[in-house]
Every structure is written in C-alpha cells, then in structure tokens.
C-alpha cells in the first residue's frame, strides 16, 4: 500500500525567536534551520531537551509561526497556513485523545470534519482499528485503555486522515521500556507500509537509531548533523554528536599527517584512522574517538591509556567493563564473553582500540 499522496517537506532558513517572559529578551529557540525530507522518508529530530526540536515540529504542524524563513509541504508554501488547513497529522506525547468520545469516535473525528459519508467512515475506522489491532476496543472510552493502546488509537486517528506528513512528538516517552520497543516496530511498520512522510521527535538515541531513515541532530536551535543512523554513529561531525548518539571514549592525539588516511600519534604510538574532521590539519591537537565495541583491554602498559577495572556488567551476549582512567570512566564492550578474558575488578589494565573503526575529531571538549 504505497502512498502517492506523500510529499516532501522543506525548511528554508527557519528562525523562531521567543520573548523570554522574565527578562523580556529575545531568545532564539530555532536559529536558521534548513533541511529537506524526501517523500515517504522518516526523519528523526534528535537532541537534548531545549534544543528546539519540538519547536521545529510544531512549526511544521502550524502551532508555532516561524519568525522568518519558509516552510514547504511538497511544492506548497505553508508558512502562513493555520494548523487546521495543513495536511499534517500529529501524534502527541500525551496522546491528546478526546476523553468524551470512545475509541471509534476518536478515530472518526478527522473524517467527520472532512464530511466523509457515514458508511465510508465506519468502514474506514474499522480498517484502521484492525491495522493497529484494536478492533475489539472500538466502543471503549480512552480512559479504559492501557498506555500502549491509547497510543495506537492516537496513531490510527492521525493515519486515517491520510496526511501528507505524519508528525510524532516523543510518542513513546510515556510508555514502559518493553512497550516502547513494540511500538517502535509498529510505528515503523505502519509508516513504511503506508509510505507516508514522517517527522519524529525524540531525545532517545536508541529510538532514533532504530526508527529513522535519517536523523537530524540538533543542539541549541541549530542542526549539528543530518545523516543516516550509521553515518551519525560512525562518522559524527563533532564530539557532541559522537557522545549523544552512543557511548564513546576520546583519546587526545596529535595529527601527524593527512593523506588518504589521518595519521595520528598518541604517547609515541602511531595510528591511522579512516575518518577525520575536515578542519584538522598537520600538527593539530585532536581527539580520536572509539566506541565501546572497538575498544579492547590488555595488560597494563600495553595500550594507549592505563586504568583500573571498576565494574563488570554481564549482559549475556556481551560484558560491559568500566575502566577508570585519567581521561574519565571508559566503557569497554567485550562481545562473546564466554571465549574472552574478563578482567577482575581492581585489576590494573590498559586500553587499546581498533584504529579502522575510529574517527579523528577536533578537540572541542569543555574541560574544567
């Protein structure tokens, strides 16, 4: 069931300035954002709270008006279109179900507004309730549904109007961990099968990674990086993105040479990294980033940084070992723990990494 209706979304240099109620000063919630979402694509806005991701979403839905810039849905400029005239449908963090209507009335609401004939409405409501697996709950009031079921009603209510763009505002944050995983799969399945363009807002990196075609990482009202989940994970543009999308360790190094690879030196040892920041040049003090799965533990003095094992967390398919070093606490992931050596707590060890999995970044860490 592919959707010919689904449209692209374009933001052109969107700014949103709020007035701070206390000081009366202007605060830029979103400071000049441009991006494009292709038809049928699911793009996630990821960032810490207060980074402006929800404001971006609310500007796309029409609940906030950008201070400057333009928003397009498909070819249409919707910058000045009120929310009820935009072909978007939003799933809210708190669901926003109408408490005075039962499940099927909730789902039918958008169709009734569009003056769809009654028999068509009931047929369609039935179909969408089946799609989210709630056909037996049609007559229940929302207050008698579980959180996950409420979320499904909200989803069906938004999808039934066949919007050009589906908007999801942290839809899973009120659910427990297990349900969240289920709903993640469900949302992805529905979005893919309907071929609908979707924008998803979350601060949960796992959610973002597992759902998205592409991720937009935001910080302080600016887009820091936009790319596929694997791009963002393996090839972050700076230490903020690297740290935000996963556990990471940074080792200070010096750039020795940049050719087909980036040649760096750490404490007299030489490495070649396949990826590096464009801004780096010969002689720069830089950081080399390594993910837990690319780190390994050896005898003290062997690797690039010495430390003491402080904890081992057994997860079945892996063991997470925490090592305390001068650079801070570093997490090392040891896969297939049954055939590998696990170091005891308190043992002096040393950390090494697989250089082919790393990236050299500009040193922009804030230190005391």
């Amino acid at each position, binding site marked *: 069931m592919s959707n010919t209706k689904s449209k692209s979304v374009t933001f052109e240099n969107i700014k949103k300035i709020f007035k701070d109620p206390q000081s009366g000063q202007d605060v830029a919630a979103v400071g000049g954002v441009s991006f494009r979402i292709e038809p049928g694509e699911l793009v996630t806005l990821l960032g810490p709270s207060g980074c402006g991701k929800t404001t971006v979403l609310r500007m796309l839905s029409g609940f906030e008006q950008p201070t400057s810039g333009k928003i397009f849905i498909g070819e249409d400029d919707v910058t*000045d279109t009120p*929310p*009820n005239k935009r072909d978007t449908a939003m799933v*809210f963090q*708190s669901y926003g179900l109408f*408490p005075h209507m039962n499940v099927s009335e909730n789902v039918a*609401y958008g169709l009734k507004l569009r003056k769809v004939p009654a028999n068509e409405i009931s047929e369609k409501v039935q179909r969408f309730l089946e799609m989210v697996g709630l056909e037996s709950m049609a007559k229940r009031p929302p*207050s008698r549904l579980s959180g996950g079921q409420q979320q499904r009603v909200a989803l069906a209510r938004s999808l039934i109007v066949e919007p050009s763009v589906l908007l999801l505002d942290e839809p899973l944050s009120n659910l427990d961990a297990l349900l969240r995983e289920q709903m993640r799969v469900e949302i992805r399945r529905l979005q893919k099968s309907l071929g609908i363009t979707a924008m998803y807002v979350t601060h949960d990196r796992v959610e973002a990674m597992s759902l998205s075609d592409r991720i937009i990482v935001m910080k302080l009202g600016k887009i820091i990086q936009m790319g596929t989940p694997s791009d963002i994970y393996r090839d972050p543009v700076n230490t903020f993105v690297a740290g935000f999308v996963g556990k990471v360790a940074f080792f200070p190094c010096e750039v020795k040479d940049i050719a087909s690879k980036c040649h760096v030196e750490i404490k007299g040892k030489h490495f070649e990294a396949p990826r590096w920041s464009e801004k780096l040049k010969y002689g720069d003090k830089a950081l080399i980033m390594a993910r837990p799965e690319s780190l390994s533990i050896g005898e003290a003095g062997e690797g690039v940084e010495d430390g003491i094992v402080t904890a081992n967390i057994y997860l079945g398919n892996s063991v997470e070992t925490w090592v305390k070093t001068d650079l801070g606490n570093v997490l090392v992931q040891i896969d297939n723990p049954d055939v590998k050596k696990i170091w005891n707590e308190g043992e002096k060890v040393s950390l090494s990494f697989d250089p082919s999995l790393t990236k050299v970044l500009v040193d922009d860490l804030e230190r005391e």
Partner: protein
Amino acid sequence: MNKRLINFIFTMLFIILVGSWIYTSVRNEFLKQSRAAQRRTVETVTAGFPSEYEHIDEWLNILSEEANDYKIAFISEIPMPGEKLSSKPEGDSELVNLIETSQNDSEFSKGFDNAAYEEIYRSVKNWKVGTKEEQALFFAPAVSLKTHELEGALIFAFSTDGEQGFMRMLNTLFVGAFILFAVVIWQLMLSRDPIVGFALAGLFLMTLTFVAYPLFEALRLSFIENGKFSLSIWKTILQSEGYMSALWGSLKLGCWTATFSTIVGFLFAFVVSRTNAPCKKLISTMGVLPVISPPFSLTLSIILLFGNNGLITRWLRVIGLNFSIYGLPGLVLVQTMGMFPIAFLTLVGVLQAIDSTYEEASLNLSATRFKTFSSITFPLAIPGLLSAWLLVFTTSLADFANPLLLAGDLKVLSLESYIEVTGMNRLGHGAALSILLLLPTLTAFLAQRFWVSKRSFVTVTGKPSGRITELTTPTVRRILTGIIFVIVFMLILLYGTIFAGCFVKNWGIDYTFSLENITEAITRSKDALFDTVTLAAAATPIAGIIAMIAALLIVRRKFHGKRFLEMLLMTPFALPGTLVGISYILAFNHAPIILVGTAAIIIINYVIRELPVGIEGGIASLRQIDPSIEEAATDLGADQATVFRTVVLPLVRPAFLSSLSYTFVRSMTAVSAVIFLISARWYHLTVLIYNFSENLRFGLASVLSTVLIIIVFGAFGLMRLLVRENTNLMKNVT
C-alpha cells in the same frame, strides 16, 4: 507579510474614501433638509405677518408662546449699511439683546441687507442667544399682507440642537463602523485564526462598554454639578452626618455579621471535618442551603415571626417583653443566617486540607485534645478564618435586600444610595454613595484575594488522608452538635414559616387556613414571573458561553492586554449591586447607548455580573485539561469554532453547567442592581415580593418566595443530575 500589510492599507484607504463620501453626502443632505424645514417655518411665519401695525405686539406674543423650536424678534426699520438701529427691536428679550449688541457684525448687516431686498438670509455662523449656545439666525423681510410694503425685518433664532445631535450620532456611527471594519478586515487579512481575533475584540468591546464605561460614568457624575466639574457632591456627602452615619452603619453591620457568621461557619466546618458527629450530611446540607435561598425569604420569615405583629412577638408581649426586630440586631441575625454558609464553605475547605497527621503528632507528644486544637488546628485555620470573615464582610456591605425590609432606623449605604436615586432623583449623590460603599468592599475583597489567601499554611500534598483524628471528647461533641442543631432547627423553622405563610388568611391577624393568597399572588404576579424567568433564561446561555470562551482564551492564548481583560471581566464580582445598577442607569440613559427600560439592559447586567464565577470555574476546569487534546482536534482540521463546540465545551461540561445554573439562579434572585433597571414593561419577581411586603401583604410575599425557592432548588437539582450523568467520562481528563 509586507504584501498583505500593503493590501490591508489599500483596503482601508478605499474604505475611508468610500466612507467619507457617504458621510459627507448623508451629512449635507440632512443639513439641507433641516435647513429647508427651518426656512419653510420662516416663510410660513413671515406670511402671517399682520397687516395692522398695532397687532404686531400681540402677534409676536402669540408666536413666542406657541413656538418651541425658535425665538422671534421684529425690527420696524431696517438699518442702512453702516447705520445703527433707530428703534428698539420687539419680541424675545434675549434675542433683542443679541440684536442690539451685535448689530454691527457683518452677518447682521448682510441679514438686514437681504431682508431689505425681501430675501430670507440664514447666518453662516451660529450665535449665542441668552444662555443657549449654537443658535442659527434667520433674517426675513416683514411684508404687510394688505399693502405689500416692507414693514421691517423679522429675526428668528433656531436651535441647532437637533442638527448637532444628528451630527454627533453620525460621527459616532461612522467612527464605530470604521473601527469595526478595520478590526474585521485586519483579522481576516492578517491573522491566522480570525475567529480568536473576533472573540477577543468582542470581549474587549463588551467589557469596555458594560464594565468600564458605566463605572467611569458613575465616577464622573459624582464630580459634576449643574453640568460642571465640582466637588460639591462629595463635600456634602463627607460633611453630612446622615451619610456618615450610613457608612458607619454599614461597617458596623458588616463587622457583626462577619464575626457571627465566621463563628457559626467554623462551628459547622469543624464538626463536619474534624469530628465523628452524627448526621454530618444533614449538617453540611443545611450549612449550604441558605446561600442559594432567594433574597427576602429569610427576612420575610423573621418579620412573620418577630415583626411588630409577628407570631412570637405576640407571645413575648403576653409575658411582657417588648422589642423591635427592625434595626441592627435583627439585620445581624438575618444576615448571619443567610451568610454563614460562605464562611462554612471556605472553612470546610481549609480544615479538610489540614493534614490530620499534625494533630496525631501533637496527641502523640501527649498534648491534650484541647491543647492540640488550640495550638495546632486553630492556628493553622487562622488564614482561612480571616478569609471567611472578609468574604462575609464584603457580602454584608453589598447586601441590599435584607436592609430594605429590616433596616428600621439603621442607615446603611446600599439603602441610602437607593433612596437618593429613586426617592430624591439625585443620581449623582446615589453614585457617590455607592462608590463610597465600594471602598471598604474593594479593600476587603483585595485583602482576601491577594494577602490572606497567600498566607495560607495549607499545603496540598496530593494525598488527602481519609482518617479523622477525633479532637473532641463525647461531651464537647454533644454540646457542639447541640448548638448546631439549634441553628439547623431555626433555619428549618424560618423556611417552614414562609411555607406556612402561604396558607394563612392574614398573618398576624387571622390565622385561618386559606388558599386565597395563592390564587391572588398567582394572578397578580403572572406577568412578573414570566418576565423574571424570560430574562434569566435569556441571560443564562449567553453568560455560560461567554464565560467558557473567555476562560479558554485566558488559559490557552497569549495576547496583549490579557491581564487588563481579566481584570475587567472579574471586576463586577467585587462591585456592590447598587453601584452596578446606578452606574447602568447613569451610563445607558443617554446617547450613544440608550438601553434604560429595555430587557437588554437587565440581561446585560445579569451576564456581566455572573460572568466572573463562570470564568473562574471554566479556568479551573481548563487548567486540568491537556492542551494537546485541543491541538489534536485543530491538527485534524477543526477550526477554532469547531474545536470549541466539539471538544472544549464537552470537556468543561460540569463547569459550563454550573455556570449556567449559577447564572440562572442568581438572575432569578437578583435584587440590588435589577431594582434600578426594571421598568413597567420588564418587572422582576423579587421587586414584587418587596412591594407586597412593604404593603404588609405577607401572604402574597410568602407565596412568591416559595415559588422562587422551588425554582431555585429545581435549577440546582437539575444541574446536579446533568453533571452526574457524565462523571465517569470526566474523571480521566489528562
């Protein structure tokens, strides 16, 4: 954005052009018509100029007596240019004066000139004749019918009041229409949701016209004497012993009533929330009941029992006790009976919110029960007590109905201002007195709102404890319950008396059973009852809907002037009814808005006065509702009006219904403001009750009071039924 702004400016320019063209056309046409009419009058009068010279005096006299829109004078010889009048003009003395003093003016020479050539001339500018400003002068030739010779000139002075009034009206109309157009077009062209803009503009317009403007007029009139600014009204009031004793009387009454009501209210609240006394349900019900009982009902039954011819008075007289219920003690008694529920409701909330763990802790530290009460419970309730006291004080000061029947020799401000307006027709004095009454009322109200309520020790923990720590010994409890039952018995007795009053032939004289009163009351009050119900029923939905819209805008929207609008909307809550009534008749008995005598003024008064309670209810209920519910509806394509109708209104249904029933009941039982606004066409049942009581027709008054009580209780019962119907849905609004 800029393109649209330019569009807007061009549209407005176009409207201004078209508007001013229409304006000048209408204005010129009217002036032409009105001047033509004056000219015709001049021609007609001139044509009747007597042929005999001797009759001129007589003729002028008859004209001055008959004519009411002009004055006339005659000069027998028209002076040549540059010359003076040779003889004194005859006719209206003021006009004669003007002619003599201004004869050298160019307008006069032109007029004389024209008259000499047997033409009628109208002065270009307007003149002051005697005390009257803006008079237009006409110069007409006086030709003898017989001889066809010019005998002199007639000079007419026409008042231009009509013209001026029309111009003022036209100006107001056009400025109003222009502002309206500008707002509507601005909203339609520049705003993303014009409906919200219209609603806001409507609310601002409504509050400015019906709250701010009347108050301003009342204040203005209290500073005006003979059309000029003057402090004389305030001087008389502040220096007059009578008025000052009324202020003193109001304050005294307020203090006594507030004190007794707080004591009784606390007793009820304490027993209900802090003891295991029996019949708590009955006690709570009786503690709330009087608050919704119609005005005059308690006063009426007190008069029936303790009045000069009262049932109990007679018994007491038999045993040699002589007293009069009229005056301060009687009023304090009636007001306490009617107003202690206000204290009770406030205090029950406060006491229930005090966590009983504090008391348990105290008892646990081996304090006695009395010690616990005096050192824990009571101190924690002090802000609540103060709050209750101030609320009752405000209500007592503003009370009008009870003093009306029961004041006797006691003077109170609300009554004095009524007497000034209706008895002496001194509107300025009435306005000043009710403003004087506003000062203590407003002070107490603001003190309660912003000072006492912030000093509350009560913290909402979110987990109310169901347990009650027994703070009374059985003996104490029995004494407290005993006192309460005496009061409850008195209330039941009072209501019973009204009911009994319906079936007695002539209370105080002839106690035989009779249905005469009922039939007579019904025939005589049919029209008033119909009016009362119609007016209340008309105001109810308007007030309910406006209250919910206002609450929605206040809670959900950001806009300029929000605090100001809130203030204007809430102000009527703190205003004594007499002030509202007086300011309404002052503001709406003259242009530009004339409403006195219509049903509209009464309905508007109801709506404006009952809005604050509805709005507060709406705000409280909307704050509980997640805004994303409304956003979801908007997002699915509903415009603002549809969101309001299909989502907001169903969700705030309990608040909406209670606002409806509140408005209906309060409008059915209104006295203080409505007594100024009723007319021969639109009457009110409560005023009829008052009239019957004044004429000692207590039987009729009892019947009407009973009817009102039944209607009021019916309305509340219906509301409760309707709210309960949907409660299972309302619980989980998140």
